[in-house]
């Protein structure tokens, strides 16, 4: 078990050698989404996008091994070239199904390159959204340390 064990959200920051406008286009246009969405062994043959706040999207990724996998959600925030937020949930019965998440992406352009900050977390209820306060990381560092210790003890 790793230190991420006790966290329940995902943060991926990556710098792309492209202007923010190009990156924003990659997220907002179906013809672009189909070219990159999904892990390496997947293709993305289908993307239906109603790109406006309140509009929904549905995307399908496909692999020989895993077949067709649909996911979709609703756009909640759109600030061109700067910020994008949408809900995300899988259609199928996989282990991730049934848990709606919210994805927030920000784009920060610097000298022709763009820092893309990707954030995803469960989107369960009002309590969840309102509880997003400080102190959280610190709490879970302690938990992670405990879990690591437990794992060590159990594996001895």
């Amino acid at each position: 078990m790793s230190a991420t064990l006790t966290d329940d959200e995902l943060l991926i920051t990556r710098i792309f050698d492209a202007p923010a406008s190009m990156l924003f286009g990659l997220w907002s246009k179906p013809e672009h989404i189909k070219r990159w969405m999904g892990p390496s062994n997947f293709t993305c043959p289908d993307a239906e996008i109603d790109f406006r706040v309140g509009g929904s999207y549905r995307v399908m990724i496909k692999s020989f091994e895993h077949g067709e996998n649909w996911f979709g959600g609703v756009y909640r925030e759109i600030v061109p070239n700067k910020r994008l937020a949408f809900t995300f949930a899988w259609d199928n019965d996989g282990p991730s199904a049934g848990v709606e998440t919210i994805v927030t992406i920000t784009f920060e352009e610097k000298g022709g390159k763009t820092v893309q900050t990707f954030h995803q977390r469960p989107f369960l209820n009002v309590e969840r959204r309102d509880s997003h306060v400080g102190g959280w990381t610190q709490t879970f560092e302690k938990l992670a340390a405990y879990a690591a210790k437990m794992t060590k003890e159990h594996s001895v």
Partner: protein
Amino acid sequence: MLDRLSVTLSALADPTRRAILARLAKGEATVNEIAAPFDISLPAVSRHLKVLETAGLISRGREAQWRPCRLETQALKGVDDWLSRYRRFWTGSFDKMEAYIDELKRKERRK
């Protein structure tokens, strides 16, 4: 119907319950010990413990009076696995995004 993972994530959603888990990470404790630092009633703490127990995040001893709570890491492992799958999904996607950007830029230069 809520699946297992949703139940765990819902249980983790509350700051008091996260604080309780952090307390239990230091070692097992009784309801009274757990309640001590909180400005909430014992029944309220008990309700939180019930939620954590239902979610499989803690377990409680059998003795009627001394029912120490302890952290169970298996449910947290489920959250970790779930996040790992998403991390692989997006990391793989962003690798492809990088390659696609190169392709778009080459096309732009040719114009």
